[in-house]
């Protein structure tokens, strides 16, 4: 049975694990929400989570949110739709989330039909598609080659709404999607039920970070978007919070390099002519958003793990150093390179050392203007990068005593700076990087996506 417009989507939080609030979810359900939808990750926190197949969240916080949302969804009889599971949306990230969901289902005594949407890609298949001219680069990267594909640990394609719609039509109570555009996860249910496409996509963009599109920074976690045949309304789920025209329209800027156009798998959302109206004290209505269909593409994300890093950290309050931080940095760095070369020799390979002067210029690396007052203290982070973890650590050890005692004034007793740990060297692991910024052209939105089911209902019947 198709619900009538408007379609109401409850977005409980900006990202699964951030802290869904039970009373907000109850409030949204009481207002007639047709589905609960949220993403569970993004590329924001870097490539490590795709390479390692892990979440940046601890299991407990994801489980706590799933408990609130699965209970509410089951009681109301509405679907729970989660995209980009486990932070990166790789197959292992999805399976990790599935296991938490199964545990919660058992604890709640519910038996949902769970659809798993996998979007991790096979390297040989991508090479063939690339050779056939079906993969094109997005700025600032250039054409894709096989070596880059091979360098990736994992590659995912960011899904659009179609695999979600297919799973909903097949009767899914819970959908756990791999990598998906944030907006597709939130737009899919409204698109499936015939809401205005521009409004559905724009509502999804506005709601993607939960209550961030509202006026009060600490006003709660979630929002409710209501999408009809012409536009959408948005209001926060926290009853003391409110949306205003500025908070909603400004959110289109957030984390988006273009404030008017948002490129999605099957088209572009154009909000150039969108109009924002204050509907009541808490609600903003938006009309005039336009969906412009385009040939279907899926954006690829690939992560690689490269060279290894070992760290050391000291704190310095020595006034002799603090009035000459830049000079101290340059001399210490030269000494570190010299020590590593002298004590390890050619075996050290093409290593790299950097010193980040926290409290002075570590964040930018720029030289502070002349006359900048001396800081009260600084932290110096030593970062050695080498071809193996063992070599990065050997380099750190070669530098240890000099890093600890390096004097800026020669005629005084050797200083000892403040190490915080023993052992002083910390093996940080590999350097993870994203390697792809390309789209693959497809004829069918589902052709690169695999759907699997865990049907607890059927298991019960069997």
């Amino acid at each position, binding site marked *: 049975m198709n619900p009538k417009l408007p379609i109401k989507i409850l977005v409980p939080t900006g990202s699964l694990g951030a802290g869904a609030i039970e009373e907000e979810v109850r409030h949204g359900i009481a207002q007639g929400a047709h589905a609960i939808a949220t993403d569970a990750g993004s590329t*924001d926190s870097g490539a490590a989570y795709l390479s390692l197949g892990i979440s940046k969240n601890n299991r407990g916080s994801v489980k706590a949110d799933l408990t609130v949302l699965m209970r509410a969804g089951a009681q109301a009889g509405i679907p729970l739709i989660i995209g980009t599971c486990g932070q990166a949306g790789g197959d292992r990230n999805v399976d990790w989330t599935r296991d938490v969901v199964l545990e919660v289902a058992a604890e709640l005594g519910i038996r949902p039909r769970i659809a798993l949407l996998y979007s991790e890609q096979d390297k040989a298949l991508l090479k063939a598609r690339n050779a056939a001219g079906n993969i094109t680069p997005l700025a600032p990267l250039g054409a894709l080659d096989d070596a880059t594909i091979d360098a990736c640990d994992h590659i995912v394609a960011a899904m659009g709404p179609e695999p979600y719609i297919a799973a909903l039509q097949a009767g899914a109570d819970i959908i756990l999607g791999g990598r998906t555009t944030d907006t597709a996860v939130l737009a899919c249910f409204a698109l499936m039920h015939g809401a205005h496409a521009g409004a559905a996509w724009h509502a999804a963009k506005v709601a993607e970070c939960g209550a961030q599109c509202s006026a009060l920074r600490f006003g709660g976690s979630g929002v409710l978007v209501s999408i009809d045949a012409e536009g959408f309304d948005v209001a926060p789920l926290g009853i003391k919070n409110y949306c205003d025209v500025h908070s909603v329209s400004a959110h289109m800027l957030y984390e988006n390099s273009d404030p008017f156009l948002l490129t999605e798998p099957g088209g572009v959302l154009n909000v150039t002519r969108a109009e924002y109206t204050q509907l009541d004290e808490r609600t903003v209505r938006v009309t005039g958003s336009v969906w412009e269909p385009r040939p279907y593409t899926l954006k690829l994300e690939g992560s690689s793990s490269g060279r290894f890093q070992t760290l050391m950290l000291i704190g310095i309050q020595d006034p002799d150093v603090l009035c000459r931080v830049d000079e101290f940095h340059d001399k210490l760095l030269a000494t570190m390179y010299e020590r590593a070369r002298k004590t390890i020799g050619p075996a050290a390979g093409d290593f790299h050392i950097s010193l980040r002067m926290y409290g002075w210029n570590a964040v930018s690396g720029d030289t502070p203007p002349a006359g900048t007052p001396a800081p009260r203290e600084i932290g110096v982070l030593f970062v050695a990068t080498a071809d193996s973890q063992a070599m990065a650590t050997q380099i750190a050890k070669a530098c240890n005593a000099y890093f600890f005692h390096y004097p800026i004034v020669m005629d005084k007793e050797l200083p000892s700076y403040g190490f915080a740990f023993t052992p002083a060297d910390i093996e940080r692991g590999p350097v993870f990087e994203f390697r792809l910024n390309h789209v693959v052209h497809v004829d069918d939105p589902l052709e690169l996506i695999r759907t699997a089911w865990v049907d607890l209902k059927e298991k019960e019947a069997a």
Partner: protein
Amino acid sequence: MPTVKDVCRHVRSKNAGPYWVTFDLFFDSEENFLAYGNSPALDGALFQRLFGADPALVKRFLIPGLNTVKLSYARTSPQGGMVERDMHCGQQYVRLLDVELSRA
């Protein structure tokens, strides 16, 4: 000449995906937005000087409804790479605050 922080009530920066960085300059009035939003000082050369950006990959958008200017540039080193200092680029806006703005 006023600086960015003199005519903006809020300035922020953030990664926009792994390959782009975006800045939002919320001007404090329509008057200042109209006077300085299109300032030649906020050009590709500025981002080249401050962040080593390719001036050809710097984009500027004026959003009159919000009295806001959005500036985006393509990152020059990989997010989280060997020399990373600010994964989310959330601190980069600070280097824009003292930029002097000539009138558009």
